[in-house]
């Protein structure tokens, strides 16, 4: 393939279909915000926006892995809540305990992901049910352990990633959250371009064909669940750092994450979608909430507007798929898995 059509190919792959829709939506929302309040697009405000959005983007990336493999993870909200409460209780304000507790949280996240994955793949329980059950278990177990309300306190060191940053001119503060976010996005893209990523998409697309091709479907899916739980753990670190510990932390985040991922063009059922798309969906959703605030939209109307926009965005993306596409030239051999897999 010559370089020019390769660039065009890359661009078209990244920006067609759902991914394109979501970035267009993001652009529209930002434009409206700019008209309402020009100061929002000043660097300090943008940094604050990205700091707020970072946890949701991480959750969306994790959810992307699971949905791309053909499953669903409803337990991430409860996991975030559980991790924050666990951290608070175990750290109890002692700075020295921060790092050991962080490692423990990561281990716990991996464990939860493993359980989700193995129950779904080996016990063959539908992931909706598995993760629903896990959501209930985490919710109840954590409250049972703390007697109903979170106890302890997070250390300042723990709160740094979510709340702090590097003080700089121009942007006032470059949040650690943003750096962590960029780091994970890059890692996720690299992962999806590796052979694991290809097998993940292939599994979501048609797991029987994938297993005939030698893919260990149960390993791939379990890994996806583990990735989702690990991302949720990092999101918990950011959220706990940002806002401290409240009793309701994490509730409802799973629906936000799934909404973000679907907005980003990832198809529920698997086999399509990009990390960039999922990230775009999360940013668009967060921007939408910001827009509501800037417009001073009455609080009670916001769910309705959110619902309409979500349906409209997904309907629009679905329309694009329905339109007959111009026939593609037969893909070259070495590129065919990526082309069919990543194109929305």
């Amino acid at each position, binding site marked *: 393939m010559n370089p020019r059509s390769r660039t065009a190919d890359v661009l078209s792959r990244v920006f067609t279909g759902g991914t394109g829709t979501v970035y267009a939506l993001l652009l529209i929302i930002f434009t409206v915000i700019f008209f309402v309040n020009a100061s929002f697009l000043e660097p300090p405000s943008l940094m604050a926006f990205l700091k707020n959005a970072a946890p949701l983007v991480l959750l969306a990336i994790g959810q992307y892995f699971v949905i791309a493999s053909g499953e669903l993870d409803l337990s991430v909200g409860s996991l975030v809540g559980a991790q924050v409460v666990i951290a608070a209780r175990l750290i109890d304000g002692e700075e020295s305990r921060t790092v050991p507790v962080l490692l423990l949280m990561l281990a716990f996240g991996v464990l939860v992901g493993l359980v989700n994955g193995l129950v779904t793949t080996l016990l063959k329980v539908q992931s909706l049910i598995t993760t629903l059950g896990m959501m209930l278990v985490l919710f109840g177990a954590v409250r049972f352990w703390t007697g109903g309300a979170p106890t302890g306190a997070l250390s300042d060191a723990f709160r740094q990633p979510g709340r702090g940053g590097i003080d700089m001119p121009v942007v006032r503060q470059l949040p650690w959250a943003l750096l962590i976010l960029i780091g994970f996005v890059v890692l996720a893209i690299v992962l999806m371009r590796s052979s694991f990523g290809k097998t993940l998409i292939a599994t979501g697309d048609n797991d029987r064909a994938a297993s005939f091709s030698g893919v260990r479907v149960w390993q791939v899916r379990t890994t996806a669940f583990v990735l989702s739980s690990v991302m949720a753990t990092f999101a918990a670190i950011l959220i706990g750092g940002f806002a401290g510990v409240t009793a309701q932390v994490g509730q409802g985040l799973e629906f936000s994450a799934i909404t973000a991922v679907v907005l980003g063009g990832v*198809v529920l059922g698997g086999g399509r979608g990009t990390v960039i798309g999922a990230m775009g969906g999360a940013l668009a959703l967060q921007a939408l909430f910001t827009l509501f605030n800037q417009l001073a939209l009455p609080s009670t109307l916001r769910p309705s507007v959110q619902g309409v926009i979500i349906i409209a965005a997904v309907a629009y993306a679905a329309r694009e798929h329905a339109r007959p596409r111009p026939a593609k030239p037969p893909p070259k051999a070495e590129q065919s898995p990526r082309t069919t897999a990543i194109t929305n």
Partner: protein
Amino acid sequence: MSQSVRTSRPTGTPSWRLGPTELVYVALLGLVLAGGVLVAVQGQNLFSTANLVDMLTRSSLLGFIAIGQTFAILCRSMDLSVGYVVALTSLVAATTMDGDPGRIPLGIVAVLLVAGAVGLVNGLVIAVLRVNPFIATLGMGLIIKGYLDTQYQGPAGRVPSEFQQFGYTRIGFVPLSTAVMLALAVAGIIYLRRSRTGYHMFAVGGNVEVARMSGIRTGRVLVTAHVLCAMCAGIAGLLIAARFSVGDPRVADNLYELDSIAAVVLGGTLLLGGRGGIGGTVGGVLILAVLDTVFNIMQVDPFFKDVLRGVIIVAAVAIYARRQLDRQARRIRFDDGGGGGDSRADKSPPGAPVRAGERGGDR
């Protein structure tokens, strides 16, 4: 081809078979016995009038919602807006009846109309706009939530005492609401097995492409399923109004939608659609109700209840899913973006985007 168009009782096999529905009731029986023993050890009687009434009352509300959810799930769809529909219809009922016994029929009709409208919109968004059901019904739920929050700032309306009977009267130890729920279940079972649209729901859920090519108007079937689902949720709203004597917007906070899906799956209906039925769903609802009652009598810590519930739901489905897989024939699917021939992959609903060149939905 005929493999996909199948009810939960395949022809040609002996009519008595330990199918998924029977398995649910065996599990229910086991649970009741185990629960009865556990409770007796505590010195209480699970089968006292009070406890039986408690169990059955718990089951009637969820039962209405779960029966409706069955229709949606059979068509490989789902409805996450049912909680909000219940809240909305309870308010519609209470404000329409407004304390006047003469207006009870009007209230019931209003509820069914409003619920039907919501279901219609859900179905159209899924079938015509081809938004996947998770998002479509989640979005609809949010829209209703915004309406409720804006229009109603708390409980409203007044339900005449004649209608409150629906929520409180008992026939022996069977609450009237449970009896109505069971009657609705029977009606639903007859509908699914006898009527053409009902039969088609299994087809659409089994393989929407094949169904469409067989001449089934898949869009209409899907819309019908959602209308029925929402109307059942509307009846649940009527029950809430009867029990509370007012309509209550906050009723939507109780996550009935996830409970109803759990009940349907516990009852042996596949999330992938095409198999299952209302009989199993009622069993699933009863299982959850017995569990909750036993926990309540034994004064299990409310948070530990959640843990147990989660584990039991997953364990129960693990037992069913394994059995169904062994018996189920492999289904060859057209590329529909979904998983393979087993029940693991969750949802690739009929409205999901399909590859270039194909069109799904109604003709």
